[in-house]
C-alpha cells in the first residue's frame, strides 16, 4: 500500500470552522476492504497519551488504486497548543483495512491558524 494525503495548496494550518480540503490517493497490490481518513487530535509530552478522533470518512471497496477528494470542517476544540508539559496536536491519517502502514500529516487547528504557545509560570 502506498497511501498519500495532499492538502490543497499545501496548507497545514487552519482556524476552527475552516475547511481542510485536499485528496487522498492509494496504490496497492492487495485490495483493501476499506480505507479510512481520520481527523484526530493527540497529546504529546511528559504524561501518557490521549487521543480523540473527530471525523472519520470511510471508503469501502476502494480497489487497488485511486484518488478521492475530501472536505472536512475543522472542529472548534481542542485547539492546537503547546507548553512545557503537554502539546495538543491535530493530524490527518489514512488507514487501510489490511493493516498496512498509514500516512499521517500534522496540521494546526487554532485561532488565526497559529498554534497557541502556553507560557511558563515562574
Amino acid at each position, binding site marked *: 500500500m502506498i497511501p498519500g494525503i495532499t492538502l490543497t495548496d499545501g496548507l497545514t494550518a487552519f482556524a476552527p470552522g475552516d475547511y481542510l480540503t485536499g485528496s487522498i490517493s492509494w496504490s496497492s497490490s492487495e485490495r483493501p476492504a476499506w480505507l479510512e481518513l481520520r481527523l484526530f487530535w493527540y497529546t*504529546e*509530552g*511528559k504524561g*501518557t497519551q490521549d487521543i480523540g478522533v473527530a471525523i472519520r470518512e470511510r471508503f469501502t471497496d476502494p480497489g487497488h488504486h485511486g484518488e478521492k477528494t475530501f472536505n472536512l470542517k475543522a472542529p472548534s476544540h481542542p485547539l492546537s497548543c*503547546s*507548553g*512545557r*508539559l503537554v*502539546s495538543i496536536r491535530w493530524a490527518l491519517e489514512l488507514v487501510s483495512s489490511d493493516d498496512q502502514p498509514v500516512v499521517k500529516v500534522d496540521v494546526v487547528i487554532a485561532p488565526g491558524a497559529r498554534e497557541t504557545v502556553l507560557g*511558563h509560570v515562574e
Partner: protein
Amino acid sequence: MLLARENPFRMQRIEALRYRLDAAGWQQLLTRFAANRWRGVLVGPHGSGKTTLREEIEARLRANGWQVRALVIGDGDVLRWSMLMDLITGAGERTLLSIDGLDRLGTVLWWRLRRAAREVGGILATSHVPGRLPTLHHHQTSASLLSELVHGLMADHGDDHAWIDQRCDELFARHHGDVRACLRSLYDDVGDQPTAS
C-alpha cells in the same frame, strides 16, 4: 523553554524504545519460554523494561496466531476472582494470559488462577521478585545502558551532548537504577533549557 512536542524525552518516544535483545537472545528467550510450556515471569526492578519486553513477546506470539489477554495489576488494585475468571473463560491452547504485576496478586487468587489456567496455552507475567512461574528473563539496568538510550534519543537534538554520560551516572544513582524515572527527569532537564527562539 522547550515545547512538549519537541522534547526528545516525551513519553511517546520513551514508549517507542525497543527492548535491546539481539536475534540470538530472542531465540534463546522464546526457546526457554516454549520449554517451560509457555510459562514464565520477567523479573526486575521498577523501570527496567519488563513491560516493554512483555509487550514485544506478546507481539511476536500474536504474529504466530496466539490470542493475548492482558491484565495489568497496579499498586493498590483490589482484584476479585470474577475478574480473573473473565480472563480465563474461553481461553484455549493458543491463548496467552499476560499479567503485569504478578507480585501484586494475592496468594490465594494466584493458586486459583494457576489451577484454573492449567489448560491455557501460556502465562507470561512481570514481577519485581522471582517465583510463582519460571524466571524467563532477569532484567538488569546500568548507567551505561541509560547513557546509550539517552544518546539515541538526543541524536537529532542539538550538538552539545558532552553532559549526557555524567548526568546519566547521577540520575542512575539517584533513581536506584530505574531507567524510566531517569528518562522522566531528563524530560525536565531538557524542557527547562532555554531555546534559541
